[in-house]
């Protein structure tokens, strides 16, 4: 079963575009074929916002693997996103983790 990371954005606002860009960077670090990245535009699909109770955007939700993780904001701090979603063990190259964190915190 595949794990899904869903990013909810609103149209093409600056926040939305930044969040999509940052999520792509994070996705590169995750093991391939195990994660599906889904981007939902709540302006076009508001029903999905209702179903998942999306109040703030951008919102990134990790439903599987448990526990459920939720991060709001443009995901500009990669380290925080990884901690927030509890993705540390999922990283494809644990050694690279340090470099990545080091890179972001610069």
């Amino acid at each position, binding site marked *: 079963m595949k794990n899904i990371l869903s990013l909810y954005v609103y149209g093409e606002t600056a926040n939305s575009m930044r969040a999509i860009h940052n999520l792509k960077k994070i996705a590169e670090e995750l093991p391939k074929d195990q994660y599906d990245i889904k981007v939902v535009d709540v302006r076009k699909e508001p029903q999905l*916002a209702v179903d998942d109770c999306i*109040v703030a955007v951008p919102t990134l939700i990790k439903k599987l693997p448990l526990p*459920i993780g*939720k*991060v709001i904001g443009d995901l500009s701090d990669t380290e925080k996103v990884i901690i927030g979603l509890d993705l540390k063990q999922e990283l494809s190259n644990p050694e690279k983790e340090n470099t990545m964190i080091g890179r972001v915190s610069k």
Partner: protein
Amino acid sequence: MRDFKNVKPLVKIPTGVEGLEHITMGGLTEGRTTLIVGSSGSGKSLLATEFLYRGIMNYDQPGVFVTFEERAQDIVRNVQNLGWDLNDLVQRKKLMFIDGSPEPEPQAEVGDYDLSGLLAQIEFAVKKVGAKLLVMDSIGSLFTQFSNVPLIRREIFRITEILKGLEVTAIMTAERLEEYGMISRHGIEEFVSDNVIILRNVLEEEKCRRTIQVLKMRGDTHYKGEFPFTISSTGISCMPLSAMELKQTSSTDRISFGNAKLDKMTCGGLFRDSVTLVSGPTGGGKTLMCTTFAGEACSHGEKVLMLAYEESGHQLLRNAQSWGLDFQKWQEDGLLKVVCLYPEAMGLEDHLLMIRREIEEFKPQRLVMDSVSAMERVSNIRNFREFVIGLTSYVKQEEICSLMTSTTPKLSGGDSITEAHISTITDAIILLRYVEINGLVRRGIAVIKMRGSQHDKQIREFMIDGEGLHILASFKNVHNIILGVPTGSGPSESEHLEDMFEK
């Protein structure tokens, strides 16, 4: 060039909440946002929920409920006992919930965000059910869910502007910390400020007193100040007591008191829609007056509601029995209803609401309240007066002939708070007084007020025996009975002799 040709005047839409239309002079302004603030437990959420429920049920205005605090299913459950089936409304696509309540999982904030997700949900829901009404409960919770306070304030403002564009009439609720202090905790009123309603829950004389105040209503009028309200099994009932208008119609129908002599003293009996006050010291015959008054109605097939605050139902029945009136039978026949409870049982607003509910249900022609002065104990003077005004205006409107008793604080009579405050509201006043003459305690009765009719100006003696009330001749050569200090100017010899023998 700016063109204001298409600017429409404000229209108020009714809310369906009992009494709220009166206070707001017609309801909430259509298409605008009303902020309801109140401390915890003041009834904000219930008022908001009732606004939606009544709007859908009574006026067929679909609604959206946005909740930031409680889960949607909890809101549905909370009002189930009131008989409000919100689930049914959801099924019928008249109501839609947007659940923005905080989730148990922690939520991290990384970088910039806004509340466009909420906006998308609101726009979607409003279009889906064709909503005219919207509730957001409670805005304050957004400030605990999100850490960027300036952003949340900006977003709330943006949401209210968008609600205006959607032409929905909205209610937002917000917490406040003190009953008399800052309007709301996060200063929300500064930007959601078309209408502001404050709910209060103040402990007064060890009883909770809830009040509602319309602080402002832009572009329209409303009653000012606090009005009591209560929460009962039918939801919220506002009691605009002092806002009641003196516009009752008046009846010229006379009805008997139950005693021929007394009818004569009032020159033909009481008016059908009048309120009569019987004032007297303890043991002065007030309860007998009530019993006589009720018995007269029941024996002619009229319904009587008796409210007893000093005696139990059984005592009342026994006393009536001793005067030959079969209250038990009338009670069984459904002509008489006796409600006995201590004044301390609840606050005055709840008493008033209960009396109104009893009247609505039982539809009596006469009402007896023994005694109204007992109510003084549970409240301050202002609230007591409001209670009496609320009650008298209601019974007059319903054309219920009412008899209230008031116990004077002293054996000799004198003024009580009750009399000072309600004598101007009542239509007729009957005084009962002890008269001490030559070491004997006798009883005196006088009609001192009878609106719209002549009345007997004499102070008469009356007696109580196994058959009830007997009114005799007037006292002669005695002064100052009403003041409670009867002084004889010396009875004439013939009178003295007369008194020595049985009549």
